[in-house]
């Protein structure tokens, strides 16, 4: 029962997910919309509570044990509590019961998001350029025939997208574009075919109960 009930649920909801694709009737589409928009959101909300509980427990344990860098756990917990209070009681744009404005200084959840979260995310994203340069430096070495081919193609494409490439030869940008449009896309499509078929097969295996590793404890 412990294993059969989840398998039955997966089968039923899997089939309910496939049917709306081929049946346009509003009864079926309405059921699908309810499952996707309502039921899934309710599940996600409960899972979020569990996830946040886990996060707080990990950090409280670290503080209790005086683990490495335990002081930063206090920073996380304090930030979590303050942001939650502002979010829950201050409203999205300062329209809640908690005042979130002192003069012209606002600290509602939207302000926190735009002035803290977004710049920090942008800073992390900006690191990508340096990591890309470092990865390219390590990867583009003429160690073998294939590596040399990769190096040459990368060199041609990088030059082709720069104005300098056009100065070197007017054919370079179009050749670079051909590399991106033909061999590159051909390779990607090959992988995508395999991915698409793999997705169908994996989904079928899970819905039909052949693949059971997600239940935990390994397959049958």
């Amino acid at each position: 029962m412990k294993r059969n009930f989840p398998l039955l649920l997966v089968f039923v909801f899997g089939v309910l997910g496939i049917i709306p694709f081929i049946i346009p009737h509003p009864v079926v589409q309405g059921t699908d919309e309810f499952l996707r928009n309502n039921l899934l959101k309710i599940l996600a909300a409960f899972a979020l509570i569990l996830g946040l509980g886990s996060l707080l427990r990990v950090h409280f344990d670290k503080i209790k044990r005086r683990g490495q860098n335990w002081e930063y756990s206090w920073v996380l917990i304090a930030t979590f509590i303050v942001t939650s209070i502002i979010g829950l009681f201050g409203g999205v744009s300062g329209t809640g019961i908690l005042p979130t404005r002192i003069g012209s200084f606002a600290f509602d959840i939207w302000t926190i998001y735009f002035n803290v979260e977004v710049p920090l995310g942008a800073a992390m994203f900006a690191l990508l350029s340096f990591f890309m340069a470092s990865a390219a430096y390590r990867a583009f070495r003429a160690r073998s025939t294939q590596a040399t081919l990769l190096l040459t193609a990368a060199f041609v494409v990088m030059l082709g997208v720069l104005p300098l490439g056009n100065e070197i030869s007017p054919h370079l940008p179009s050749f670079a574009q051909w590399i991106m449009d033909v061999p590159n896309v051909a390779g990607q499509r090959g992988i995508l075919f395999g991915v698409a078929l793999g997705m169908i097969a994996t989904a079928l295996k899970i819905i039909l109960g052949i693949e059971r590793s997600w239940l935990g404890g390994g397959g049958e």
Partner: protein
Amino acid sequence: MNIVMLAGFLAIAPPASVRGYDTPDDGGRSITLEWTLSPDDGVIERYEIYRSCNGVDYEKIGVMGRGRGLFEDDTEDRRQYYYKVAAVADTARAFSEPSAPVMSSAQWLNRKKINIIVAVAVFGGLILLFIQRARRGQKLFVRKIAGLQAIDDAVGRATEMGKPILYCPGIGYIEDIATIASLSILGEVAKKCGQYNTELINPHFDPIVYTVAREIVKESYASVGRPDAFDPDSVYYVTDSQFAYAAAVDGIMLRERPATNFLVGWFRAESLILAETGASTGAIQIAGTDQVSQLPFFVTACDYTLIGEELYAASAYISREPLLLGAIKGEDWGKVIIGAIIIAGSILGLLTAFPILRLFD
């Protein structure tokens, strides 16, 4: 008798054969209107579409440009509608004869998707066929996948060095197939961690994936007889913000210095940040994703990369379950069929001189 309005000396011919029908293969609430263009289509400005519920009082509901003889109307189901189309030039309007009454309704089958249903049925049939063969004991060969073969060595390395293993399942949600495939591999890695008493660190992006992963890891430890070794704090939720998650995992890599990093699942722009940071710590890295755009980053920065469907094959490859191997075989034969169709279609497409190919026009 056609109604023709005169404005000065301007006279235009009305459109003809106005026909309304229930829009096919939809969920109802739509009627498609077709008409034969006015003989004066070249000089008119537009067509105006009029609708009535009783055949007497018409109201204008839409406009189409000249040269267009098709209009789709939003309607209520099970209600009769009548249509007229007027050709308009300046102030002159030439109305067509009214259409026969028509009603919209919902269909139970979208016939445009039948080809997809057939293709999925054929493909699914192939998979089931090979699963049956596997059930009867037929040996099925699956080629070596280096990334999956290296899992044992990677876990052993971490055990010998006394360092933890970091398993990052990506930023996908539970409905992503790559995430499900990643959780299958997580189960196997967790079993080995339980057997060898190696520390596992498993941070998560999505709370639903976290709850599933927690149970998988717990069951895996129990299945190898080490339920006591399971640390509930080893599997935890971090954040559902993409770059905050990347920063958190980077911090774990730099502080905990895991000997082995698994970056398996659904990734986006943070993939290179994670892979490069892991490479800088000297860890052995096994990555896998079905995101074509992120594969080059993993191939560059990681020791082993599972590409596309190799990730989906992981569960079958590791467990060597005949049923799962049978499904892999079915997939491969599906690819053979698609490849053959592409080659045949390409050759036929090149043979444009042959009259027989006009059959496809």
